[in-house]
């Protein structure tokens, strides 16, 4: 399934609230959390990570990964946490509005 435009940022923030992850890990986590619905390549995720970094919502540091290899690990900033709350609220409104329009099948 393709992602709807503009939802990727929110999904990344949502994933990072569970704990710090490297870029590849985030892509995998989104796949797992969506039970395989969204298969995201790291390559398409990367610009979004840079964008969120630039906005100050996430930060990154070099750390040793679980396989004892160095990796750039991203974590949520307080500003990102706030942003996630906002996006979630908007998303809920959006879903409710679409559901109202579409009606019950």
């Amino acid at each position, binding site marked *: 399934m393709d992602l709807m435009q503009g939802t990727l940022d929110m999904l990344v923030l949502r994933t990072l609230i569970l704990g710090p992850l490297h*870029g590849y890990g985030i*892509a995998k986590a989104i796949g797992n959390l969506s039970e395989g619905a969204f298969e995201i390549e*790291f390559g398409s995720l*990367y610009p979004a990570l840079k*964008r969120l970094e*630039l906005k100050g919502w996430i930060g990154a540091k070099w750390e040793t990964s679980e396989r004892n290899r160095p*990796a750039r690990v991203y974590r949520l900033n307080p500003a990102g946490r706030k942003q996630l709350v906002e996006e979630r609220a908007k998303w809920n409104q959006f879903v409710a509005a679409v559901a109202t329009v579409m009606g019950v099948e």
Partner: protein
Amino acid sequence: MGLFRRLQYLLPGRRAAEEREMRAEFEALQEFADPRDLGNLTLAAENARAVWGWAWLESLAADVRYAVRVFWREPSFTAVAVLSLALGIGANAAIYSLIDRVLWRQLPVSDPDSLVTTEASYSMPKYERFRDLSRDVFADAAATSGPVDRDIEGQPGRVEMVTGNYFPLLGVQPHTGRMLGPEDERVAVLSYRYWQSAYGGAPVLGQTVRITKAPFTIVGIAPREFFGVTIGNAADVWIPMAAQPAVMPGRDWIHDSHSFFANLVARLRPGITRERASATLTPIAIQLEMERLAPDAPAFVRKRMLSYKLELKPLASGLSSLRNRFSKPLRALFAMVAMGLLLACVNVMSLQFARADERRRELGVRLAIGAGRSRIVRQLLTESAIVALAGAAVGLTICSPAASALAGLISVSGQPVRLDLDIDWHIAGFVLAIATVAAFLCGLAPALRATRLAVSGGLHQGSRGTTAAPARRITARIAATVQLSLSVVLIAGAFLFSFSLYRLTHYDTGVNRERLLVLDVDPSEAGYKDAQTGPLNRRLLDRLRELPGVAAASYSANGIYTGRSAGTSVASDVVDGPPSPNLSASYDRVGPGYFSVLGARLVAGRDFDRHDDKTAEPVTVISREFANHFFPDGNAIGRYIYSGKDRLRLRVIGIVDDIRREARRKPERLYYIPDAQTAGGVFTTRFVLRTASAPAQVAGLLRSAIRAENPALRIVSIDTADQLLDRTLDLDRVIAALSFAFGLLAVTLAAVGIYGMLAYDVARRTPEIGIRMALGATRGGVLALVFREVVVVGGAGVAIGLAGALALGRLVEGMVFELKPGDPRVLAAAVVVLAMVAIAAALAPARRAASLDPMRALRAE
């Protein structure tokens, strides 16, 4: 935050680091991840770079390129816009740099905020006592003579004498060599500017520089930005205070407890406030004054001293007599040039509006094929920014010359002001700031409108612009209103300053200035002592009177139009009490026949005569203002006044009509004492001479007559009274001329604005007017239709302008002579002028409307 990060990415180093980081991250992931899960890393890198803002930078570059192409195609618009902004910005920068230097700038010394001074002057013995007694609150206290006129290597220059702790206290670091220290005696430090102008910046350390006749060894060059602590009066050379008698032969100031020539420069101890230090030092200052007092001083003098309060003044931005005198004129000039810039902006804005209309098609096409509105607004704003920046660049080139020319017109006591007016970061920053404001002022509204227009109707070629019309009419009206209101303010200012100038040059000063010369001779350098100056003055006077071409001559200590004055406290038989401002008066010591030489009118009593000498009763001639104040009952002749601390009793023998010694001074409480009855002690003397022929021819004879007495006598200046008076009015003239120039510009722009607005209106309403005429409207009715517009716009403009003129009037209060800024005659004159201009501008469009042929007008539809 985002912008700051973006700007960071413009740094090549930062971008390279980001690039390395990205590659490292990709490599680290490739170590353990499935390549298929990673996807297209080249594309990922490309998109990431776009996020960092290269795309942003590239679009800016594209905007700039596009704007330059547009300007290339429209050279006349570009030239007009850049030039008008350049003049506006340049004039603002020039005034700003003057204000910055004179009023605001902090001294280039360490921790200027803890520096203080006092209003009092100090003799060196008094300074030393005060310094020793103030150690609780002052970390240190230094004394300076301020820059004094002395010959340096035979050329006129300014020398400042300072105590050894002066430079260490200020924390001034030398440009080369060293500054002066406590042990120094015959050494000198040059100012950077003097070093450049006199030595061309060549190595000079160890060389000898002669000040008057005394040799000094040059030990250092002051830093470039340091001009001393007296603003507008820069020193060329600093020498130790100990060397004062060497450069001023015959005058020993450093041991004399009556020569109050030094200013105090002190640094507060950390944590001590000015208020606390003032409170601590007040009893010390009182004690010092009491010590100096004669034992038989009257009780009220002692009482007054006990109530004295010492007040420390901040020295962070230097000592300046300029500040008090020029803060108002400079602020008024600033307001004027700011209005000039506003006019330029309005002008460029209306040009932009016109261009926006012409570019509707181009912009419409771009919007139609998918360009975002914000993208196009950004591009139009880039155009305005380029115009404003180009204007700023041109403006900067005229800033320094304009500021120097203005500074050249400011003089203090006949001395031209010396200020460093080079362009620096303060001014560059200010120019950048106003250029940014100007860019938005003249660009934002047209850009927003152009894009809104283009969305709706841009592609309907040939349409009458039904959507465009109301907006364009409104903006044209706003522009015309702004231009009109600024015109009212500026023209009112121009009238006000011109009337004031006229009065200043034509009112009765109590002196006949025709063929009147003022000659300033300084006998002290030639070695004359105080007691010898009296006989010297009389000998010189005899020589001058013998000269052919001199009809009459006399002298006084302070002369007229010299900016000098001496004052003391006075009492009379009628008005008495402890000294207070109410009992202060000025005095002058005059030679024989002083009043008749000046052409001053004696209104009662008699002039001094040769019987009024040392052996006779001390007498005085008082000014009319003095008489009115101290003898309100009207009978002054034969009564007594009591002069100064010693209450010297003087009998009033005459009243002279008020002599205005300065151009804009109110009548003074002034009393004159005959030179023959004073003990001498006149340092410099102003001779006044009435010539029989043209004053210029006599000037050479005067020089040789003075030299014949003693070649060492220094002639400070020879000027006609008219020249001296004129010189004090230079700034008034500049302000009047500038407000006229700006006023004329504003009026012209307003006329063009009104004409443009009405012409467009009439053209657009041609069918409507045709219908009205066909239905029986008279020519008068059509004329009224057009003039209604003028009345609405003109009324609004004049109302706003009058409000502005009244508000800004407070700024020039006291600057205009015997006129109130809100003078109804001045405001009425401005309104009448503008009403006439508005009607003249409306005449052509109105006539066109009235002479329309209804049939053709209707057919045109």
